[in-house]
């Protein structure tokens, strides 16, 4: 089947055969590999995207179910040559190591800061509890977003 949807603000169509996750469609059919596959079951957040205004794991969305929907991926949070403030904060704080979890954190944090521009540390943590990072121990990620929320030291 052909799926038509709005991807990062642009009308997009993709060919889908069989039951396929949105994540696989984005990576393999559409050619946007920024969303990462790390657990295939919604336990790591590496594939986080925004679907019709809701932050979700794209590995748990059936590709065909986005017909007519709006999808934002990590590739769509900022223009080609600029960083979103969330990305800038992570870069400055040293919150990126291997980087495999990074796109998921970026999308989840953009979603957080859009609804709550100055979250408390506790709110930051609870909002990002679905994103696993294996490298940083989260310290730099927390500092990045405390800084962005205006709570940093």
């Amino acid at each position, binding site marked *: 089947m052909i799926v038509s949807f709005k991807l990062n603000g642009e009308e997009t169509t993709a060919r889908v055969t069989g039951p396929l996750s949105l994540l696989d469609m984005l990576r393999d059919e559409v050619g946007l*590999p920024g969303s990462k596959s790390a657990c295939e*079951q919604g336990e*790591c957040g590496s594939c986080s995207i925004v679907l019709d205004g809701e932050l979700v794991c794209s590995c748990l969305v059936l590709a065909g179910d986005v017909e007519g929907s709006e999808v934002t991926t990590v590739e769509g949070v900022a223009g080609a040559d600029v960083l979103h403030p969330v990305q800038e904060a992570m870069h400055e704080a040293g919150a990126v190591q*291997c980087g495999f979890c990074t796109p998921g954190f970026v999308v989840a944090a953009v979603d957080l800061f859009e609804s709550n521009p100055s979250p408390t540390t506790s709110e930051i943590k609870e909002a990002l509890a679905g994103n696993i990072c294996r490298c940083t121990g989260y310290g730099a990620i927390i500092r990045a977003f405390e800084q962005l929320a205006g709570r940093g030291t």
Partner: protein
Amino acid sequence: MTTKTTTRITPAKGGVGESPLRPDGVPKLKGTFEYAQDLHADQMLWGATTRSPHPHARIVSIDVGPALAIGGVHAVLTADDVPGRATFGLEHPDQPVLASDEVRYWGEPVAIVAAEDEPTARLAAAAVRVEYEVLEPNVDGDEAERRDDTFRRMRIRRGDQEVQGEVVVDGYYEVGMQDQAPLGTEAGLAIPDGNGGVDLYATSQFVHVDQEQVVASLGLRPDQVRAHPTGIGGAFGAREDVNLHIHLCLLALYTGKPVKMVYQRSESFTGHVHRHPARMWYRHHANRDGTLIRVEARVVIDGGAYASTTAAVLANACYFSVGPYRCDSVSVDGVGVRTNNPPCGAMRGFGAVQVCFAHEAQMDKLATELGIHPLELRRMNALTTGDHMPTTGQLIETPLPTREVIDSLEAMPIMDDGPPDDVTQLPGGTGLTTEPGDVKRGVGYALGLKNLGFSEGFDDFAQARVRLTEEGAIVETAAIEVGQGLVSVLAQIARSGLGLSRAVVKHVDTSRIESAGSTSASRQTQVSGGATLEAATKLRQRILDAHGGDDLNDSGVWRGGELVVGIEELAEAGWEETVTFRHPPTYAPDEDGQGVVHADFAVAGHRAVVDVDPDLGLVKVHRVDTSQDVGRALNPESIRGQIEGGIMQGVGLAIMEELVIEGGVIKNPNFTDYLLPTILDAPDVEALLIEEDGSWGPFGAKGVGEPPTISSTAAVAAAIRDATGRPVTRVPVRPQDIAIG
């Protein structure tokens, strides 16, 4: 011999001591950084693997017919199709590329397929019909030891074996099987070159050793296989061994097409080695005044079905079985057994983690018995420069600031603020199991010691090349960036060696540079960093000599305050320098385990503060403070990242991370049940870096990757003991161990 660093830091923006922004940060943040999972080639096929559903079985027959009959399948290969050496292995090639007569662990590869898309490849892999005669798996380490089914036995005897202390404490300890669980699973792409050779782009910590093993099993000439560094989503030891590398190259050469393979998470849990589970018996002797008199230990680690690095992990466990303490009478017996459990190998800390949990529990037990504060007992016995290693007897010549680590850790404010009001930070979190009144707080300390770089006479070297180009200096290397920040630190070293502010790291394949060794053993900053520094300083000197200059900076060569050659002209001249760096030699131990076995050491200490709900056995690690011996901090922010990340993995091992094995089968090969700490589980961390000149690393730097993981687990266990009075003789500590005992 005392190695003193004399290399001058030439001023340059972005040099050592700074924490410049990571050069790969922007692409990683924008999702454009290319990982092995993201590789693509025209006409590419997808590979998949048929794996054994049994931990032990005889293969009666393999019928590839049903798989080949599926439309879109291009190849189904078995052991018969391996043209060269039938086995591989990091230290001993004992592991079949594809099992032929027998399978020895759950998930062992039996066949590989290539098909036009991934679902078809997986379907075909499942369609390969393998008839097994199921055999009883040997999963009992004691039984394996009795039958002498072992990878290595270690025996260390040092000093008077008859001496006894006035106070003796015994203990038995266990460590469960931890997984590295890097977020990126194993992945790669092999592209045939059209002339019988192949280019491999795959997840790795050590491309040259991958290349050698591919060459052997494919029966090719070394120049026909090129292994390329590629983007890696974490490693932590899981990527030292070959897994899909030979399979990909076999499929690519057989089909004549590029072949890509990406392991799913469940497959990743069987597709790489794990941290060895360990059982340890200890007896510590001390005098009433606290002087450590004698340590006796027996260490048994389960290597699983194949050798991997079990021999080296066992040796490390034995060498570091006493910890960073002086002791002149030591007896250690170790064995690495072979079973039908999942193969185990390298993981951050490499044997030192397991014994640290045990020796630190023993030191606390001794402190209690003697009525001495745990830190005071450690300080009294602190191992330091000029002492002999308690196990090998090696004279410690590089700086070992154990006392400074203890003193600084003790001086850090404890910030004992009581259980938090924030429910997300209590044991059980938003599960609402626990209120502040249910919580007992505990504090625990631990120290850990580990070698840096390869040991026991292994020829440990790294090559690096520094070139001047129009882009600035380029450091060429095959050293793998796994996320730790090598791309920053090598560039910083080059800048400070050259005196130029523009430098980047460029990864090159195995045909274009000699080995950098593995990105493991906390070694790349020291070894590849050493090569980079030597290349940069030599190149600077050669350029100055050639132009009679007295300074080189971003403008060019200067003499007496006058610019004599511009930087553009230098870049056009194609200046380059290639250096192979070796650390001080090490030697295999004698039959008593004695000798100059290690090149360098690092020590770290951790203080954990935990909140425990004793009735439910739930633990929240509130904070972990640390002091770490780093030699010279070349990039403080990267070091902090290593410390916080390493502590988190240590906390994971202490309270939640374990592969549960039953009869050789992994019961939790997924992220629902193999629990990794989340951001809500992260403790606050305060870190002090102890800097001291004298190590042979560039500018005196030491490796920093492993020490954070070694004693953090032990510190958390000690804190849980402090809070609950439970013995905590096993990690991970499970709720039932605390609540029921």
